[in-house]
């Protein structure tokens, strides 16, 4: 019985190793069509960053990376000869790395932009309240000054016979 368990464990281990070893081969089978959903996912990540308040220049950096990935993908797609397989694998691995980088950066950007947008909103609303207080104080001073001016003018009046 223990021997059967050991065999089973070895079989499971070998199966896992085979899966890990097969991983790079799976990448080679990707075409532009196969990668489309992955590119689509990155667009969703970009939209999330934009909604969080990321600026156009911040998004622009990611867009440049994505266009590089598209160009590499197109280049890989042109390599149809079996002898080009290593180059194709290399290109598709690069595409995969770029997409992972973009997804990670987009996630970071979303977090940063969310924080920044929240801070900006708080500052804007607090600034509004401070402006209202300052405006009220200014109004109080002005009315007080005007009242004192009127009183002064009243005491400066002279009665003259007509």
């Amino acid at each position, binding site marked *: 019985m223990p021997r059967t368990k050991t065999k089973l464990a070895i079989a499971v281990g070998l199966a896992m190793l085979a899966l890990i070893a097969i991983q790079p081969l799976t990448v080679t089978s990707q075409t532009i069509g196969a990668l489309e959903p992955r590119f689509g996912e990155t*667009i969703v990540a970009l939209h999330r960053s934009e909604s969080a308040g990321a600026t156009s220049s911040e998004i622009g950096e990611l867009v440049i990376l994505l266009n590089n990935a598209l160009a590499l993908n197109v280049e890989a797609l042109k390599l149809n000869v079996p002898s080009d397989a290593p180059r194709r694998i290399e290109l598709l691995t690069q595409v995969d790395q770029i997409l992972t980088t973009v997804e990670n950066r987009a996630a970071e950007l979303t977090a940063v932009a969310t924080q920044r947008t929240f801070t900006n909103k708080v500052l804007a609303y607090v600034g509004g309240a401070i402006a209202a207080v300052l*405006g009220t104080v200014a109004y109080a001073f002005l009315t007080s000054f005007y009242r004192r001016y009127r009183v002064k003018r009243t005491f400066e009046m002279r009665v003259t016979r007509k």
Partner: protein
Amino acid sequence: MSLISSQNRRTLIVVFITLLVVCEMLAYVATTPRPQEQFFQLYVLGAKHMAADYYPDNDPTIRIGEPVTWYLGVTDNMGTAQLVSIRVKMANQTIRPPDDQQGLESPAPVVAEFMRFLRENETFETPFVWNVTDAVSSAGSTRIVTLQINNETYQIQNWSARDGYNFRLIFELWTWQTDANGFQLGWTASGEHRVAWLQVWFNMTSPRPT
């Protein structure tokens, strides 16, 4: 004795509340993004970067191997980054063009595709240099066999025109739809589906005989 009379205090409270409402409204306007019209611009320009001079010597009859230079461009005015694809299709007079109302693509075969990520307000423009590298004629019908676009050669399947007149290149704008997880002809803005496409006609009246 109070420094401010009760009447003055009431006036100050009213002034403060009024200013507070006005300032907070300004803060809201400043921090809320304004809605804008969402659309794409798709264009094809001639060799001189203008909407003219589309053919060599202004003659729409193209000869085999004669290069034609256009500029193909798309601008993203959607307010967000977009993944777009311009699909180039070869058609004759009888094939149906894209349907704006139904949002249907042209059934003509795709010859080439230009995919690009665009950020907000960005324009992607690429030279579109093409020439017919091979065309054959038989029984009054001209068939374009191969087409070269930007130094890439594309095979055209069974596409012919009577006496070589009224061929056309159709440019369709496709965009990535995040909810459908795929490309869609045109785009959806404010719940409305819109389509952008262009076509340029040409003739090929000097093919090689079969």
